[in-house]
């Protein structure tokens, strides 16, 4: 017996299921954010606690830590589903694979980037980022973290069938994400010196549109290669 379901329903179900799975393995998705906080803590200890130094390196430190912690969280985007066979079922769902991939990207964004956004004022405080730069920091994270999730999905999909994909994943993804890092830090720096951050922010918005539009296609192709 077949029952007609719309793509929208499938997507909502997928997102709810993944969120529930993530909720049951809380430590898994808490680890990246704790890692991020630890890395951030290391910097004042390593380069000295002077506010002038910290506020200058703050945009870079926050964004590099965000990149690294995203690398940690990415692994679980497809891996568990690949191991227990759920991924094959996802590819067979009666809706375009690109949409299922977007659902996966959304879930990854919710469980890794939202906590980051929530603690970002704290990070700004810890690194004595000037207060006028805080809205821009949040804006860059809002625009940039979905790109992390989307481009990251490509890398995870490519390496999902490998047993030890971790180091390879960083090699594949970090080069592709360097432009994002450059423009994000440029925007925050501009705001620190009370200049207009509009240019880099516009470029980041362009990256966002490009990544969300094209990454699902690449992920689909990569998954079909990995899953056979």
């Amino acid at each position, binding site marked *: 017996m077949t029952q007609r379901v719309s793509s929208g329903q499938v997507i909502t179900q997928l997102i709810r299921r993944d969120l529930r799975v993530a909720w049951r393995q809380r430590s898994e998705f808490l680890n990246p954010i704790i890692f991020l906080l630890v890395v951030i803590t290391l910097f004042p200890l390593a380069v000295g606690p002077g506010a002038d130094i910290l506020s200058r390196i703050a945009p870079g430190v926050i964004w590099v830590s965000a990149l690294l912690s995203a690398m940690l969280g990415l692994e679980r985007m497809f891996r568990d589903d690949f191991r227990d066979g759920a991924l094959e079922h996802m590819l067979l769902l009666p809706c375009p694979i690109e949409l299922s991939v977007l659902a996966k990207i959304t879930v990854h964004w919710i469980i890794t980037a939202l906590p980051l956004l929530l603690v970002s004022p704290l990070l700004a405080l810890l690194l004595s980022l000037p207060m006028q730069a805080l809205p821009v920091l949040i804006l860059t994270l809002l625009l940039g973290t979905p790109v992390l999730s989307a481009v990251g999905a490509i890398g995870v999909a490519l390496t999902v*069938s490998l047993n030890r994909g971790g180091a390879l994943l960083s090699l594949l993804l970090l080069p592709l994400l360097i432009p994002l890092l450059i423009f994000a830090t440029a925007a925050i720096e501009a705001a620190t010196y009370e200049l207009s951050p509009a240019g880099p922010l516009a470029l980041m918005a362009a990256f966002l549109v490009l990544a969300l539009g094209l990454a699902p296609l*690449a992920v689909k192709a990569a998954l079909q290669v990995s899953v056979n």
Partner: protein
Amino acid sequence: MWRWLHPYAKPEATFRLNQKILPWFVWPGLACLVVGVIWGLAFAPPDYQQGESYRIIFIHVPAAIWSMGFYVGMAIAALIAVVWQIRTAEWAIMAIAPVGAVLTFISLFTGAIWGQPMWGTWWIWDARLTSQLILLFLYLGVMALYVAFEDQRTGAKAAGILAMVGVINIPIIHYSVYWWNTLHQGSTITRVVTRLEAPAIANEMLWPLLMCLAGFLGISAALVILRLNNEILRREIRRPWALELLQRGK
């Protein structure tokens, strides 16, 4: 066109075509390289601003241009491999990647040697240098992903997808000198093509540079062809045509 090209999807046909065209790349390439390098390094006039040390341009620029050109070529091979599932194209990805990576390394290395007297520093985090370094990482990533899989066809397909995704870096490298006004000088000859302006270089320097460009292309392409032919032979070693070829000792 498809009917004309399709026979070359067979490894054997590609092998024979490669053997036929290989001399057309090796000898003109070698000749251009020798003439271009000697002309450029010994006879071209010194630059009014940079003196003698500008001469490294004859190595640096061809390596940099073809490092990008071969990346695009690799991405096109990847596209063919993913869309039409042609095995020869999959092997071509891996035939091109190390050659391109070495070209990228040469351009970075000679750039550092050039930068030391010109800018007073071996390395600077300038937009073009950084994006070229990313290109090197992309090549290494493609190679690492290719060999990471046990099944080589899966590895080739995965590497192909990565190669296509990485194409986004090529326009960034090319326009980096226009978008960010950092230390790297603007382009000297490609602006003829992309901006329809006169080349910013005297004719006595332009000609040896063009010779070097042709030489680098010829030699690198010949290396790719040789690598591809090796790969074809390795994979097809049990096929009758390959056995016959090897027994004849040719």
